[in-house]
């Protein structure tokens, strides 16, 4: 029996087909969000089913999550990213207590109880300074591709201090740092630390291990280490972190009757 989860995020659409009996991921797909999320999600979903020799009736339940979830009217139901990320992470790390999700436009810190249920959560989707958007801005400003940011940060010897709490002003600050002779490596590492600081601050004192890092930003090397330094705790990157929300949606789909 197969269920499906679609995560219509702010940067990309991710789909996971999940085999309930075997408790394994059956297939995945991803594409950019574009301007017509509903059409793109539908096309991606149809293609994924076709590529795997499945008809629509083979999918027991289809759950949408993410920023654009309410636009996907071909899905059976919607579940928030909070519940889906928690479910997705718990599939891989069953004793996870803290889930940190940093996506393209928002970040979340989810606390999970010993019973595996979400206990509480905090969320930032009003300020880009704590999200992947900050990395996109620095990537454009320094003319370094996103996937090269991590290796560059690793070469940093003295991460620059980014004091601005706003991406727009931080960009101005980066220009000033470049003019002052700071290396790109130090600036990137400084931005990573700044994102980590905002995420950790969101959680206050109540951040307990095991900490699992998920979302698209977890793919960028250096971010995990930035979080670890601030938390003074080991941070585990969730396998296939970009798909955690869609995976959680497909797992939770099993609980919904169509």
């Amino acid at each position, binding site marked *: 029996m197969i269920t499906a989860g679609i995560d219509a995020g702010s940067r990309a659409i991710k789909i996971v087909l999940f085999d309930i009996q075997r408790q394994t991921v059956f297939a995945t797909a991803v594409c950019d969000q574009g301007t017509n999320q509903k059409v793109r999600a539908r096309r991606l979903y149809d293609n994924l089913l076709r590529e795997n020799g499945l008809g629509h009736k083979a999918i027991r339940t289809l759950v949408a999550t993410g920023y654009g979830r309410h636009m996907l009217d071909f899905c059976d139901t919607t579940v928030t990213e909070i519940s889906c990320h928690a479910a997705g992470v718990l599939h891989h790390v069953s004793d996870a207590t803290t889930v940190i999700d940093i996506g393209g436009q928002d970040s979340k810190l989810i606390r999970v109880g010993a019973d595996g*249920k*979400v206990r509480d959560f*905090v969320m930032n989707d009003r300020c880009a300074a704590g999200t992947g958007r900050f990395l996109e801005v620095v990537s454009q400003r320094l003319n370094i591709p996103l996937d090269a940011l991590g290796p560059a940060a690793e070469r940093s010897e003295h991460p620059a201090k980014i004091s601005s709490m706003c991406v727009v002003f931080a960009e101005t600050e980066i220009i000033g740092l470049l003019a002052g002779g700071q290396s790109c490596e130090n600036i990137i590492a400084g931005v990573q630390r700044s994102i980590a600081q905002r995420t950790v601050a969101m959680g206050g004192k109540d951040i307990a291990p095991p900490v699992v890092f998920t979302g698209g930003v977890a793919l960028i090397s250096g971010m995990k280490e930035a979080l670890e330094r601030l938390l003074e705790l080991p941070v585990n990157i969730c396998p296939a972190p970009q798909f955690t929300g869609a995976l959680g949606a497909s797992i939770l789909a099993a609980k919904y009757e169509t």
Partner: protein
Amino acid sequence: MDKPAQITLWEWDARYWRLEDQGLEERFFGGPLHRHVQSGDTRLAHLKFDNSPAALALWNLLLSENDRLARYRRHGMKIVGTMKDLGTVPVMALSFENLVAFYPDGAWWTPCLMEQNEGLFTLAARIGLDESLCPVRAMAGAFINREHFPIPDLLISSSGAVCDDFSVIAQRLQQLGFPVHWWEVPHRRTPSYGETAVRLSTGFYAATAQVQFVQRELQGVRRLLEDATGHRLTASMLSAGIRKANKFREVLARLRYLVYTAEIAPIGSLEMLISEMLAIHFCSDYSEALVVLQELLLEIEARVERGIGVLSGDAVRVFWINPVADLRVMNLLEECGGRVCGSEYLFAHALDSIPEDTYPMEALARAVLADPMVGSTLDRARRILGDIRRFGAEGVVISRIPGASHCAYEGELIGETVRQSTGMPVVEIEVPSLCDSIEPSIRTRLEALIETIKTRKQT
């Protein structure tokens, strides 16, 4: 009795004419709701309302206040603007026959109701009151364009521990030629060891010296009101005013208890927010406000008796902290599967009875110091915790008001206190005067809160 439901403005209009054909009896401010949209309150078209005639009267009372104020002016009554005053000077005003208290701060909802078409924020910004201040700055715009309410004969404003933003706004009004009488509210400190203190209605304690200080401040207000009306305010007149205020608060307390403890929500959170707001200054008409509230109570008693309501029985019980700048958000919580079971809209002390067993001026001074906003945040959090337990809430929403100085730091402290004491999920949202552009973000938070609570309830 018709089946309780939440209906749109247009559905209400269709229903209104049907009810009128059936002999609907209304107060002088009655009528179909759409007339308020025609006069500019376009936000109403995006809200859902309770379908009872009692709720219709509540909305009409709220939305016709400016007409009543204009009528008072024509009839030669004095209008006193009681600013940054959550239920103290209005009680004094209630004790005079020819004086009515008006709460200009209420204009903070005008940008929401009129969807910013009236330009009040722009007017306020022109005199230096920009978005770094709370939306109450809309009031300053209404003083400038004089299109929303008659300029009161007197302006009385509290200052000190009550609200920094408001003092800034009222000071600017004074500079523009609207004289303001100020009275000081001190920060409610913990009484020192050995110092005499009194227990306040909210359960807090205040040093007797602070009560006496506030009493002296209120004496200044009293003299001003006496001069303006040409009548002396005797202790017995003030006691009578306090009894009237308490009568209103008792009806409201009964209403809150029934609605917040009922198994099925008998009415929506929007109507409850408005009902609670009436306690501040009775919407400039004590008698009518009391009648409206009593009729609403009768409706709710009947619904609770029959076990019927406007939301499903599995709606999650949420405690709501701070008022919202956009009324639409209260509907949104219900669309997400929640219901409000308990509230602290920054004027909890205006819901408590004023002591009747003490000298009335002292009783009012005590009521002032009972204000949760004038003491430590921990005091406020404790009161909230008590109400959360009393009403059996399962989660908490803390709604921040952009620019409001109290909200900037109190929300996090209250949230942390609630989490630690109850273990229940708390979510913070920030609600501007029009939330349409960020509705998906608010919706996600509210839906996630509801999901979290529902999942936790599953065995």
